[in-house]
């Protein structure tokens, strides 16, 4: 007896489940464009699978065939009973096969989602923005903060009030670079952080891990506490380092 149908009406996991519940000898012939696969069942399990027509899986047999065809979108199937398997290439129970196969599809889909251009960058920028907002809540008299690349371009900038932090990024980068090379020239160790004190503000900067970026924080001199700013800069530089590509 043979049953024919389309995979958009009944999906492959359901077909496999039905064939296994039958406990008889069953063969399912699946066609998807130029590709085709044969699945053989006996005693309530998948015992053999083979596919052809797919460059990646030419002459493929065994479990990998199941994992591959689970991802086929659409196509036709013919389910026949009483057909003997020509070989036994699968020992894994059918439910374990399905779980593994569906997990692989999930992972594949996730990888595709992550590789969509701009998606990861978008998330990273959002995460860094949130991080600077969180940082701002930890600093009394907070004016703003930014994470700047050593090329002078701001990766993220957060500011409250009228201070335009973006405007100072290029000069800040020059300063940070020059301080670093001057300290090196002086044989004075390696720079941990810097503090610029002005009439109205404190400006603290610190390198992120790897030295490709630095974090700068500006706060009102009358309200902020330098020790607290150092601490916050250290904690948040570590957090930001984890979010940025190395």
């Amino acid at each position, binding site marked *: 007896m043979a049953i024919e149908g389309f995979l958009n009406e009944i999906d492959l996991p359901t077909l496999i489940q039905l064939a296994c519940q039958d406990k008889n000898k069953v063969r399912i012939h699946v066609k998807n464009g130029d590709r085709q696969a044969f699945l053989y069942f006996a005693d309530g399990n998948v015992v053999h699978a083979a596919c052809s027509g797919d460059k990646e899986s030419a002459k493929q047999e065994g479990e990998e065939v199941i994992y591959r065809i689970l991802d086929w979108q659409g196509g036709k199937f013919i389910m026949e009973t009483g057909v003997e398997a020509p070989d036994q290439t699968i020992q894994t129970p059918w439910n374990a096969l399905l779980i593994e196969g569906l997990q692989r599809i999930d992972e594949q889909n996730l990888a595709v989602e992550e590789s969509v251009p701009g998606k990861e960058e978008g998330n990273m920028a959002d995460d860094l923005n949130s991080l600077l907002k969180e940082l701002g809540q930890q600093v009394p008299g907070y004016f703003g903060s930014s994470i700047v690349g050593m090329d002078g371009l701001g990766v993220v900038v957060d500011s409250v009030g*009228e*201070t*335009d*932090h973006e*405007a*100072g990024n290029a*000069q*800040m980068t*020059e*300063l940070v670079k*020059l*301080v670093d*090379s*001057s*300290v090196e*020239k*002086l*044989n*004075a*160790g*390696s*720079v*941990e*952080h*810097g*503090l*610029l*004190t*002005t*009439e*109205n*503000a404190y*400006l603290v900067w610190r390198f992120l891990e790897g030295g490709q970026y630095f974090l700068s924080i*500006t706060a009102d001199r009358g309200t902020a506490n330098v020790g607290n700013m150092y601490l916050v800069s250290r904690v948040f530089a570590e957090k930001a380092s984890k979010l940025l590509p190395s």
Partner: protein
Amino acid sequence: MTALEQILAKLRKELAGVFVSTDIVGMDGLSIAGGSIDPAFDATAASARFATVAKLGKEISEKLQLGEMDDLLITTDQVYIIQRLIGDGSYYWGLAVSKDATLGMVRLLMKEYVGEIWKAIPK
């Protein structure tokens, strides 16, 4: 010994135990007075670079409208380096102290001495 050198010697005494180096430098990068306890720590050699650092600090303060630059503190894994503009901003004073120093005290001391140093610079 010039008046400027006398002031720096007095400061050095006050910072005994933590003093590393000091220099009074024109914004052209030329040092007019100073000294170091460690010959390897040659602040004069880096004074031109640090003059540019001081200029940039001043420019950033202006650009971000944060008021006049007061000082610039750099913390390394070995020392604290503090730069302070003197008088009308045509000179800066650089001071390096070991990390055993009480930073607040050092900055206070610099604030006290900066007027005296400005007066002692020949104009």
